[in-house]
């Protein structure tokens, strides 16, 4: 219960910081909108609706993956400014609560971007979902958590590195590949209606498993990462 209060304190602080600066959300939103527009022009989805349906899941998640990386580094830069991170390290509250709070804040930012992006994506790719659309309500949060939990952790890992902007994609992209595969397969399966619900549920279950494993590992190792010299 006490741990949850610490997580909530960190989460509220990160939401307030973002509300005041709007650095992360604005950056992500413009980036992902550009990706959608560029791909929509390149593939001409109105003329090839079947192909558009098949590739839209991949474009959506790759766009979100790259966009979230811009926000993930930003979230730790705030902690480094004025050496606030040292004050965090001196606090007696559990270090992992800081990580969980920040990952939840990043998740909320990416979900907000998805809410804005969703209708635009549907219009630009001329999409009509042929499968069970309600399954997207499971796939999107699970997929987003898979991106932000690893991203938040590895952005913290690169805090003391000179080339941290380069380091994050180098570590995050290969590690996120299994999750990206699961998200894209499940999302494309829902949009195209090609996969039967059991197959889609299998992808969703695996994605949930990925989330549980990586969240546990990140929470366990975060204090070591935070206090590394």
């Amino acid at each position, binding site marked *: 219960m006490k741990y949850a*209060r*610490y997580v909530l*304190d960190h989460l509220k*602080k990160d939401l*307030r*910081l973002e509300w*005041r*600066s709007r650095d992360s959300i604005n950056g992500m939103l413009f980036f992902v909108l550009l990706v959608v527009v560029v791909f929509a022009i390149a593939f001409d989805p109105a003329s090839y609706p079947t192909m558009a349906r098949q590739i839209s899941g991949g474009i959506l998640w790759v766009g979100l993956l790259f966009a979230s990386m811009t926000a993930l580094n930003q979230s730790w830069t*705030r902690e480094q*400014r*004025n*050496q*606030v991170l*040292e*004050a*965090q*390290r*001196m*606090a*007696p*509250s559990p270090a992992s609560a800081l990580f969980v709070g920040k990952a939840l804040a990043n998740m909320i930012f990416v979900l907000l971007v998805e809410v804005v992006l969703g209708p635009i994506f549907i219009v630009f790719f001329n999409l009509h979902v042929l499968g069970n659309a309600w399954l997207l309500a499971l796939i999107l949060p699970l997929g987003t958590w898979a991106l932000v939990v690893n991203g938040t952790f590895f952005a913290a890992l690169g805090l003391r590195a000179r080339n941290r902007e380069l380091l994050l994609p180098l570590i995050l992209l290969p590690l996120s590949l299994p999750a990206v595969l699961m998200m894209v397969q499940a999302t494309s399966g829902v949009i195209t209606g090609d996969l039967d619900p059991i197959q889609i549920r299998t992808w969703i279950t695996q994605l949930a498993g990925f989330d549980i494993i990586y969240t546990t590992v990140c929470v366990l190792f975060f204090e070591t990462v935070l*206090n590394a*010299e």
Partner: protein
Amino acid sequence: MTAASLDSASKIYGTFAALRNATATFPMGTCTVILGENGAGKSTLLRIVAGLITPSRGTATVFGGAPHKQRRRVAYMSHAPMLYDELTAMENLKYFSKLHRSEGCDCAGSPEMALRAVGLDPTLTRPVGQYSQGMRQRASLARVLQTDPELLLLDEPFSNLDVKSSQHMVELLADFRTWPVAGGSARTIILTTHQASLAEPIADRTITMRQGQIVDTAVRQPA
């Protein structure tokens, strides 16, 4: 009784020794001023006592244990403000006070008191990023005072402050030492500065450092 001690502590970064074979004890209830020029190793020594870095060789103990295990009893103020630029001083202090909360104590009210003690208005709505350097330094001091520490570590607290503000800070630190501590122990201050005259009124002991080494330790006789 010893609040903190270093036993042959060294800190080496690559081929550079920031701290060399430092041995010192900081008795409970005293104010120790560490003097030395830039690069003398003062901040490194303080960061080791704070538990922010570990010595490459030798040991450091705080209240008889490892420094990083004493977070609730120790507060550290660096020359950077250690506050979020986007939040007001009050929001910053409330946030950090919540991170220091313990069972049965939410430290309610202490952020306001701490801000008033350092001469800042708790109702100020400007974010810390818009404060002057001196105001930031005072807000930073309020951040550490509100946690009610038994061992207060201050790294160059007078930098960015004018003479009047520095004198006010010294008076405040002298007052802080008289605050009662739960359990009956006394408050200890370790302070680094290169402006010896400013810290003189509260110094019980001085340690002089040069090129990573402690070259002199002096106990000030009461007047």
